[in-house]
């Protein structure tokens, strides 16, 4: 491994830097706050000849994903970036990209969905497309965003599935942090060359992509896709293992923070996990047996592994930065509960659900302390609301 370069970068700069090193064949993208910078910086790389990428400045996100699908089906390493309304506009094409098994990689900067219109962070955009067949990787900070982008290329091409790497809008995307950048040579060697098996530009073997699949074949093809997303779990672990061995930063399906001996635990994704770590440290120094589980991979959902890591807990709080609008709770809480339901008997049944941070509402240390406090009381048998809305005026 070469010497790494330690710099100060925002999340958007970190993701654009990873894209420069990946040097994809085609990038097709459309601007939207707070993801705009990723492609804007990248367009600068194209203009300066720092990459060999063909940049397609499309007229909408729908066309961005459509052009990405064209490029990826034609055999190219293909990337894009978007956020919120852009992701929503792409939704139709996201399902198609996954169904066609195309390894497109996207920087997805989380922003609340309209309406009301808002530009700040929550996870409603990513959650809206959680059933689209894309692998979804959440990042806690700039470093993870950068590392996840490099790994995403490898995962996508091996799994033959598209991958979105998320950051929290503004909090990570515009927050300046310490970033360790790999040498270009190391990054290039890690991502390697892409050799598609079947592709449009191969005239030796002409293929029809996107055929009409009726009652006699659709199910079999979907069944294969279901298997592919299941199999991607191991691919994600393998790629993370190789990344860790080479560059010393360890990744898995999720991160366990101070879970040894923990009795009460918060499950949270993205930058909030970083805030929660500070709270956990404080509580631990006071003898409170607090821990944190931070899912990194939301799709495929690491059900058994998460349930295993939550074994023996006295109370669990799941923090969702979006609501499911199903008169129940957030998407992460629902999935965690489903995982616990199928876990061996005796797993924790005290699960509190917290909806927080919608539209960029700040989540402070005190808010998280409050959650751990609820957990302490709940673990001692005190009744607590099943769903709470943290930091909202009502």
């Amino acid at each position, binding site marked *: 491994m070469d010497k790494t370069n330690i710099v100060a970068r925002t999340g958007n700069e970190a993701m654009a830097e990873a894209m420069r090193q990946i040097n994809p*064949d*085609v990038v*097709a993208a459309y601007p939207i706050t707070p993801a705009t910078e990723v492609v804007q910086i990248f367009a600068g790389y194209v203009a300066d000849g720092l990459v*060999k*990428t*063909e940049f*397609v*400045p*499309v*007229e*909408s996100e*729908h*066309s*961005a994903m*459509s*052009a*990405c*699908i*064209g*490029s*990826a*089906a*034609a*055999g*190219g390493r*293909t990337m894009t970036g978007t956020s919120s309304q852009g992701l929503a506009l792409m939704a*139709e*094409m996201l399902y*198609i990209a996954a169904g*066609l098994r195309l390894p497109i990689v996207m920087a997805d900067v989380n922003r609340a969905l309209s309406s009301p219109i808002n530009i700040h962070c929550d996870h409603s955009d990513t959650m809206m497309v959680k059933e689209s067949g894309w692998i979804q990787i959440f990042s806690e900070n700039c470093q993870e965003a950068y590392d996840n982008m490099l790994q995403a290329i490898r995962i996508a091409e091996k799994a033959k599935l598209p991958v979105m790497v998320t950051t929290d809008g503004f909090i990570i995307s515009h927050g300046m942090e310490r970033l360790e950048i790999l040498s270009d040579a190391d990054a290039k060697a890690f991502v390697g060359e892409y050799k598609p098996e079947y592709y*449009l*530009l*191969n*005239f030796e073997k*002409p*293929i*029809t*992509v*996107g*055929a*009409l*699949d*009726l009652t006699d*074949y659709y199910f079999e093809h979907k069944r294969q896709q279901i298997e592919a997303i299941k199999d991607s779990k191991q691919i994600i672990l393998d790629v993370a293992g190789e990344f860790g061995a080479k560059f010393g930063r360890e990744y898995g399906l999720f991160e366990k923070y101070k879970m040894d001996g923990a009795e009460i635990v918060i499950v949270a994704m993205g930058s909030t996990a970083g805030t929660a770590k500070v709270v956990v440290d404080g509580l631990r120094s006071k003898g409170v047996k607090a821990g944190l589980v931070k899912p990194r991979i939301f799709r495929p959902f690491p059900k058994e592994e998460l349930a295993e890591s939550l074994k023996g807990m006295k109370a669990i709080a799941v923090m969702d930065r979006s609501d499911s609008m199903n008169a129940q709770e957030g998407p992460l809480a629902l999935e965690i509960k489903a995982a616990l339901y199928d876990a061996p008997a005796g797993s924790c049944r005290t699960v509190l659900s917290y909806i927080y941070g919608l539209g960029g509402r700040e989540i402070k240390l005190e808010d998280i302390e409050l959650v751990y406090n609820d957990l302490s009381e709940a673990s001692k048998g005190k009744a607590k609301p099943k769903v709470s809305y943290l930091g909202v005026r009502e």
Partner: protein
Amino acid sequence: MANLKDLSKQKALFTGGHRGCAGCGAAIVARQVLMAAGPNTVVANATGCLEVVSTIFPYTAWNIPFVHSAFENAAASISGVEALHKSWVRQGKYDKKVNFIAFGGDGGTYDIGLQSLSGAMERGHNILYVCYNNEAYMNTGVQRSGATPKGADTTTAPVGKIKKGKEQFRKDLTEIMAAHRIPYVAQSVVGNWRDLTSKVEKALAIEGPKFINVFQPCRLGWAYDPEMTCEIGRLSVETCVWPLYEVLNGQYKVTKPKEKKPVVEWIKLQGRFRHLLKPENKPLLDDIQAATDKNWEDLLRKESLTPQVKTPELKPS
């Protein structure tokens, strides 16, 4: 330019055995366009009759690389394929010359795909977009589109006790494309293979974005007997309902019919206009004839205005 005998001996790049209706004009468009384009062609197709009848898994009628992803995005899709080609050629990874052709129905082109088409044309990709224009959403059961002519009976603008079919005139997409100032825009028709294949050849010899709007009789939606497809196509030209013309680097060139026939000659062959032949609907018929005449005169005026203008040779972008 190949003659009919040569063309008939070529390996079919769009094969028979697809599930199109007997006498389907869309299949004729695909077949003749590919005859002119040859095997080094990638096709992107919008959802619609052509895609549905030609790619029912595990079969395909396409003997060349083909991609379909959705309804409104054939232009964006082909622009992605073309972008990759450009990228690979620049990187020295690929050297084959390739034609990039998108096919979209009138619904996928005039309506839901107009934004995608406009964007791709403005960006200057080296692509040919072929609209096979059967003047309605046929695949979903003959609904009106922006290309449906006034007075036509469709399932979403039906003829009823008080309504007489579509109330609006169709929009002029060919002129919208010409307004993009792309190097080549043309109208062609099913029923004149020479016109279509030569326009495709001409278009593909030009670098940059090209657009051909091919008028395509549809036996189901237009309600006529299947053997009439080509004849109705030719009549649409002879009545000036669908003039054959091209706009090459801004210069109009119109192929004039020997004798301009009344529109009713064309209308009376089609079930979708049956109600127009009733005496009480004569004013509507007159209206349609008047609009056809005006469009024709406008077109001739454009032609007469442009030859003198020496437009600079457009460079591919």
